[in-house]
């Protein structure tokens, strides 16, 4: 087998029935998942938008046509045109460039929240589901308490206590976003806690930590990834909402929510000042939702429509 594996074409390698290495087995699984995902045009649209946003964030200085903070009062409130593709705001700043730079802030918030929320939710949920008894009761009551905080109000409280800013917005959003992940992980863990493959691991002598890490985690992770992706749209909207209220990113940072907030005074005469960042929020939130749905169909076939 190993002699002719080098001469095998990539296509044969990925669809062959005789699998000769662990790497090939993994590659095959990725390949078939990818094919299933690419068969869903809406999900692909979501992925493309998210990738475009990430690229825009990375290469913002090369993509942006103007300095996002450069004011030019002689060109204030210009409608979309050749010089300023999406028009200018009340201080003459180029809206297109500000949206491109703003994607950095949005991505920063979304990634930071996900990185905080996923591990915390997974650990709490898996521990509660696996150990049961009083561990479950304590952890789930704590989860209930955090679940009952309205995230925007909590964020307001944080902004009042710690001062407005992106970091505080991230903390506030994370505090209210992890309980849903914990509940999901707990539910998944409960369904398999009594299953024979967990019993078999126990009979093999595996410690609780090993069972959680090697046996329960791989089954929880796909649904958590799906949930996080679908949550990202909500995170983005909350962050924009905080920006709009003046409690998230502070001027002159080109945050999309803050931009819509600043533009609402000129909404009647200069529609583009509010509309352009609003459209950015809409498109990206939609993209996260579509991408999450597509991901769910691939990773978590039980829940697909």
């Amino acid at each position: 087998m190993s002699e002719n594996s080098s001469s095998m074409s990539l296509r044969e390698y990925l669809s062959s029935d005789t699998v000769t290495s662990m790497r090939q087995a993994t590659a095959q699984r990725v390949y078939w998942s990818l094919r299933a995902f690419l068969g869903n045009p809406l999900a692909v649209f979501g992925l493309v938008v998210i990738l475009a946003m990430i690229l825009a964030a990375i290469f913002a200085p090369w993509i942006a046509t103007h300095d996002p903070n450069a004011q030019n009062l002689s060109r204030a409130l210009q409608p979309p045109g050749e010089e300023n593709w999406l028009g200018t705001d009340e201080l003459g700043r180029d809206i297109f460039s500000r949206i491109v730079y703003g994607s950095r802030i949005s991505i920063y918030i979304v990634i930071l929240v996900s990185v905080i929320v996923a591990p915390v939710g997974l650990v709490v949920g898996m521990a509660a589901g696996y150990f049961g008894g009083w561990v479950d009761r304590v952890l789930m009551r704590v989860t209930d308490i955090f679940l009952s905080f309205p995230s925007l109000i909590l964020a307001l409280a944080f902004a009042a206590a710690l001062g407005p800013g992106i970091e505080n917005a991230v903390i506030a959003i994370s505090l209210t976003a992890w309980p849903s992940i914990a509940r999901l992980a707990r539910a998944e863990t409960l369904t398999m806690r009594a299953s024979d493959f967990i019993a078999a691991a126990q009979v093999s002598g595996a410690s609780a930590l090993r069972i959680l890490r090697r046996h329960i985690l791989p089954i929880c992770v796909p649904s958590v990834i799906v949930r996080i992706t679908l949550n990202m749209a909500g995170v983005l909207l909350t962050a924009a909402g905080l920006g709009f209220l003046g409690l998230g990113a502070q001027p002159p940072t080109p945050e999309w929510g803050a931009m819509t907030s600043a533009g609402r005074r000129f909404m009647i005469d200069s529609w583009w000042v509010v509309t352009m960042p609003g459209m950015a929020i809409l498109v990206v939130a939609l993209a996260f939702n579509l991408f999450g749905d597509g991901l769910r169909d691939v990773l978590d076939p039980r829940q697909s429509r």
Partner: protein
Amino acid sequence: MSLIDIDDLSLFLGQGARRRKILDSISFSVEAGQTYGLVGESGSGKSTVLRCIAGLYRQWTGGIAVDGQTFRQADRLGWCRNVQMVFQDPYGSLHPKHQIEDILAEPLHIHKLDNIGERVGKVLDQVGLPGKFRYRFPHQLSGGQRQRVAIARAMVLRPSIVLLDEPTSALDVSIQAEILNLFMDLREELKLTYLLVSHDLSVIDHMCSAFAVMQAGRIVEVLTRDALENNEASAPYTRTLIEASERYDRDLALRQAEAEQA
């Protein structure tokens, strides 16, 4: 001294008003190299006995000893190396996201043994699975092949005792005999002692030299294979069980139903 000694084993499950006695002072012993059967209807507690021995239930009272060493004294990993278990449902006992290689190597990693690749290859060979299955996932295998993987997982630690929890009842009739023969071959090859749970008297008769009949958490009768053949069963429940296994009898079924209503 016997290899396995079960002495006055009792188990309660549930709490408060829902507390139920699952096992009621079970005692029996199994000699080395023997295949010992536990027969009984669903809910008689026969699988529970195995789960107690395997360490999956800890709240029992009484004594479980292997080779003179009691469960409470033994260190956990040592006990696991000695006592392994094959589960009833091969569709539920293999981790759906682990490749066969992972499944078989996992016990070896836990016990920090060396030559893992070699041992996995050998045990696959012993249970009659070709090497091409090594990098498959369980969902790519048939029921019989999956059960072979589950058997290989139990054998890979080289235990002396293997607990078999209805290992063939979830399989196709044509596969059942193959798997039972595999168990017989492995017993010779690896010098194993089996404790076999089944509700099927013909399987017990085929495999076991002696067996205990269980009903409602209690051992009703202990029989040898010869006694079974000479029709020496004395307990009425055992006689009913034997009669039921020989053929389907409408009168017997009616009598049973009436007895249950009374």
